[in-house]
């Protein structure tokens, strides 16, 4: 029989709060972390707003040695802070760098959608073009290699199981968690730190602005710019951060008497194959529905048991289609759709980190018995008007919340879905 997988620790760095406790408060309040981003104005972006975690450099300086910080770009800083926090939240001490013991039972799947674009833009391109390659020194490769974010965490925590970085655009963080669950279920690891990371850099966001998929109509009202499910949604708001879950076999968690925050009851990953309306940038709705159904089947959860949905819901034209797909996958009428909410309404779209940060939100909601609001959609999109009653505009108190489903859909027509269940002793 495959092992059950539980969550025993959380770590989060997000535009509206850093750290699990402050993040929960921000979620309950519906606090936006979206601000004007001067670099975007300076560089002629159509969109001037973004979500950037505040005080990350100061925080990183309090967590990591000068030597480590020399080779930690924005993504590394966010990911390592969230990773260390999840590790400590699970009841582990940070090992001494001089202690040669390796934890062969703990690993990490820490994904990133774009990677070290800031290092490429600020160092590799200008120095190479100026024929000053030797000036790059030793610190750039580890910041631009895709696996750098997970490798960094391994070095800090002496992780000795599988340590890797996945990448599947905006489903990256959710996929990472699904991959970690599989590894623990198969008995190949006791613990996996899983989630997603994305750095803050206008270079990461420029291409999206060029595609005209970023919100450019609320430059004068940043906190209202991220508007999933709204009639006036005008594109997503790019943002940054990291969310990491400590996944652990139930056996290991019980053996060491760990506090169990939730169970990852099931998960699924698929791709729509760029067919039936799916493309590099749009999801095949059949792929989306199959992914949600497969995750529920994996969790042995019936559609009517789903207590809340944390959607992908980015504030683009894809939102109404996604809501229809949720109802189709759960085989329910619009009035029976469980509460559906978008963490992105408060933090923007953290790209590869989204699945990680939003899964942290799911676990907090299960534990705290609430569904966080989906802000900025008082004017619900006309195509989903029949579902309007399912969208919370302020936090719902739901002490009986048992199951929360999270999905992430990414460019490349890739999907990942996770089913979290409240842990009842």
């Amino acid at each position, binding site marked *: 029989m495959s092992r059950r997988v539980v969550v025993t620790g959380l770590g989060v760095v997000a535009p509206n709060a850093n750290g699990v406790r402050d993040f929960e408060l921000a979620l309950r309040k519906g606090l936006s972390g979206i601000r004007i981003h001067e670099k975007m104005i300076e560089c002629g972006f159509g969109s001037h707003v973004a979500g950037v975690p505040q005080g990350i450099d100061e925080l990183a300086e309090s967590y990591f040695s000068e030597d480590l910080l020399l080779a930690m770009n924005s993504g590394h800083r966010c990911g390592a802070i969230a990773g260390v926090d999840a590790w400590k939240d699970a009841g582990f001490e940070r090992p001494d760098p001089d202690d040669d013991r390796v934890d062969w039972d703990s690993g990490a799947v820490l994904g990133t959608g774009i990677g070290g674009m800031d290092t490429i833009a600020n160092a590799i391109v200008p120095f190479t073009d100026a024929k000053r390659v*030797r000036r790059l*020194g*030793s610190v750039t490769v580890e910041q631009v290699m895709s696996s750098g974010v997970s490798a960094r965490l391994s070095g800090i925590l002496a992780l000795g199981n599988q340590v890797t970085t996945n990448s599947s655009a905006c489903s990256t963080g959710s996929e990472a968690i699904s991959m970690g669950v599989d590894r623990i279920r198969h008995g190949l690891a006791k613990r996996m730190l899983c989630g997603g990371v994305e750095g803050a850099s206008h270079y990461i966001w420029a291409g999206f602005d060029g595609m005209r998929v970023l919100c450019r109509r609320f430059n004068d009202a940043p906190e209202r710019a991220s508007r999933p499910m709204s009639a006036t949604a005008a594109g997503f708001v790019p943002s940054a951060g990291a969310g990491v879950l400590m996944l652990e076999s139930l056996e290991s968690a019980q053996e060491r008497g760990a506090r169990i925050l939730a169970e990852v009851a099931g998960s699924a990953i698929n791709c729509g194959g760029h067919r039936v309306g799916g493309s590099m940038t749009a999801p095949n709705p059949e792929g989306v529905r199959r992914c949600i159904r497969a995750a529920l089947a994996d969790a042995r959860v019936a559609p009517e048991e789903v207590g809340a949905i944390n959607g992908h819901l980015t504030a683009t034209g894809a939102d109404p289609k996604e809501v229809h797909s949720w109802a189709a996958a759960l085989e329910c009428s619009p009035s029976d759709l469980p509460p559906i909410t978008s963490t992105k309404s408060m933090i923007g779209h953290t790209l590869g980190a989204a699945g990680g940060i939003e899964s942290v939100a799911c676990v907090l909601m299960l534990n705290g018995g609430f569904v966080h609001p989906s802000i900025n959609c008082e004017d619900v999109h006309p195509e989903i008007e029949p579902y309007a009653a399912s969208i919370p505009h302020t936090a719902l108190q739901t002490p009986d919340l048992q199951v929360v489903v999270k999905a992430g859909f990414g460019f490349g027509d890739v999907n990942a879905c996770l089913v979290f269940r409240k842990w009842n002793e």
Partner: protein
Amino acid sequence: MDQTEIFERVVKILNPYVKNQEAFKGISLATHILDDLKVNSARLVDVVLEFEDAFDIEIDDDDVDKVETVGNAVELIEAKIG
């Protein structure tokens, strides 16, 4: 610039790369940069780049290979700034 001044600036540049703080406290010309201070060998190129900037000199890769101790670095820099 005398040797003492060069030594002090070299010590300051090395500081963030040092992993053995005990050895750093007793740093002298005889201190071995990798073995005693436990500086990550990959980071030596970054230390050298900082020497170049700090003293406005250029250090060949072949010269870098000869630097093992703090004293070697100080002598090399002294020779370059003439």
